[in-house]
């Protein structure tokens, strides 16, 4: 049994790299996903992941299949959409979901058009679905770098990010720079999606950000605890997903996200904090 769980990683360096990449993504993306869920912006991660496409496409048109340049392009495109959506929301009457929807669809259309100008379907497949079993040193460094930056930024700005989430009106009123924190937060989300897209693809990188976060909400009643649970679920999902993909010979990205999906289903049913069973069969009430 132990061999079944460890042997692929002991034997193949590409499996070890894939595992490390998953762990790094989990560390950065997990806590950010929790903040997105708490801000009721669960679908914004999805929108941003689509927004990355035109940047990656421009990078591809300029430099061919070069991961660093495609990443820089994706990062710029994602940040432009995030900042524009943030500014449109703050300074006009429109709500955030609407401005994100409009801007990411514009970006997506632009990306698809750019890709259609040049490039084969294979390249599109890579951007959309990634190839975690082909993680090289460069992308491993990128993933690790993004994770490190995210953890450091969270450590420094945790109080501001949580308060901006919880009571944005208060942050504005006391002049604590609500907009800056909001943009920093969106910037971190974009960074993690871009770093994740080599490994998991733009579609699946969001999965490792949001699915564990949604599941983790069922296991703790405070933000820190939920974040820890999300990171844990994301890491185990990466590990189990890689094993599944290795032993059953199925696509890696979906295997990882589906594993996270199983954790989500279990959390919905058995979660201590508002799960189905707790809701249907509440424990006896107390005296006071």
């Amino acid at each position: 049994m132990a061999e079944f769980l460890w042997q692929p990683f002991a034997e193949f360096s590409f499996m070890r790299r894939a595992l490390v990449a998953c762990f790094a993504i989990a560390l950065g993306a997990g806590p950010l996903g929790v903040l997105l869920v708490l801000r009721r912006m669960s679908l914004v991660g999805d929108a941003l992941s689509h927004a990355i496409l035109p940047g990656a496409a421009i990078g591809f048109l300029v430099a061919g299949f070069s991961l660093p340049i495609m990443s820089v392009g994706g990062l710029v495109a994602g940040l432009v959409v995030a900042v524009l959506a943030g500014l449109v929301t703050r300074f006009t009457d429109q709500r955030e979901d609407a401005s994100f929807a409009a801007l990411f669809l514009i970006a997506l259309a632009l990306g698809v058009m750019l890709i259609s100008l040049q490039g084969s379907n294979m390249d599109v497949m890579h951007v959309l679905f990634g190839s975690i079993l082909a993680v090289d040193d460069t992308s491993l460094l990128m993933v690790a770098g993004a994770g490190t930056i995210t953890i450091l930024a969270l450590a420094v700005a945790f109080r501001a990010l949580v308060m901006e989430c919880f009571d944005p009106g208060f942050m504005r009123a006391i002049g604590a720079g609500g907009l800056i924190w909001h943009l920093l937060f969106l910037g971190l989300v974009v960074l993690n999606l871009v770093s994740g897209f080599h490994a998991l693809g733009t579609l699946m990188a969001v999965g490792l950000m949001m699915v564990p976060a949604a599941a983790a909400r069922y296991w703790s009643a405070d933000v820190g605890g939920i974040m820890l649970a999300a990171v844990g679920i994301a890491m185990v999902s990466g590990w189990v997903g890689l094993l599944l993909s290795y032993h059953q010979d199925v696509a890696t990205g979906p295997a990882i996200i589906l594993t996270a999906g199983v954790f989500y289903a279990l959390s919905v049913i058995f979660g201590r904090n508002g799960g189905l069973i707790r809701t249907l069969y509440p424990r006896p009430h107390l005296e006071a």
Partner: protein
Amino acid sequence: MSHAIQIQDLTVSYNRHPAVHHLSGEFAPGSLTAVVGPNGAGKSTLLKTIAGVLRPAQGHVVRAGIRPRDIAYLPQQAEIDRRFPISILDVVSSGHWHRRGLFRGLRPPDMDRAVEALAAVGLTGFQNRVIGSLSAGQFQRVLFARMLLQDAPVILLDEPFNAIDARTTADLLRVVHRWHGESRTVVAVLHDLEQVRHNFPQTLLMARREIAWGPTDATLSARNLLRARAMAESWDDNAPVCEQGFENG
């Protein structure tokens, strides 16, 4: 600790229709003022403009020597998700922001002050509960406790006692009087005229424009209240451009 807020020919509008119309006057340093008027009279709009949330269409709010952090503003409906997983102590402690900012940790004395603030609003022993377990009235007490820590010289309260029971209201009014005793400038939007007569020395009665502004008993005369009630609530799509605004703007 004394700060005046001057309102100079203030007009605030939504889609060009004024909600506050050519209002002028002063909230004196250390004054305790109730803002009273019918629904749609522009009371909340006035408070939001003083807090800096809304921008005037014309005129000014002069906050001499008052920084944004010097104003504690309790909105009528905070954009707060009451199911957010955060403890009451953490919410109250955010009132320490101006002292601790982003980087400095909260020290034991800060925690003690937060617990004291909770005790002052009648929530002893609640610090470790999550806010989702509180009733609306208890949550309002938490927000008052946070304002105690904010230690702001100017305090703006927008209908702070809505849907709050008599005992909680009495407790929170005690906090308001404590602030008044500390010479803070307090402005509260209220509807209960008896409550205003008993607790607030100054009153601004408004119906977009000022009806009366001064000592509460004189302001809340039957004649003034009648005039306020007669305020046209209509929204005239074809209203002409305001002459007064045209001259000055």
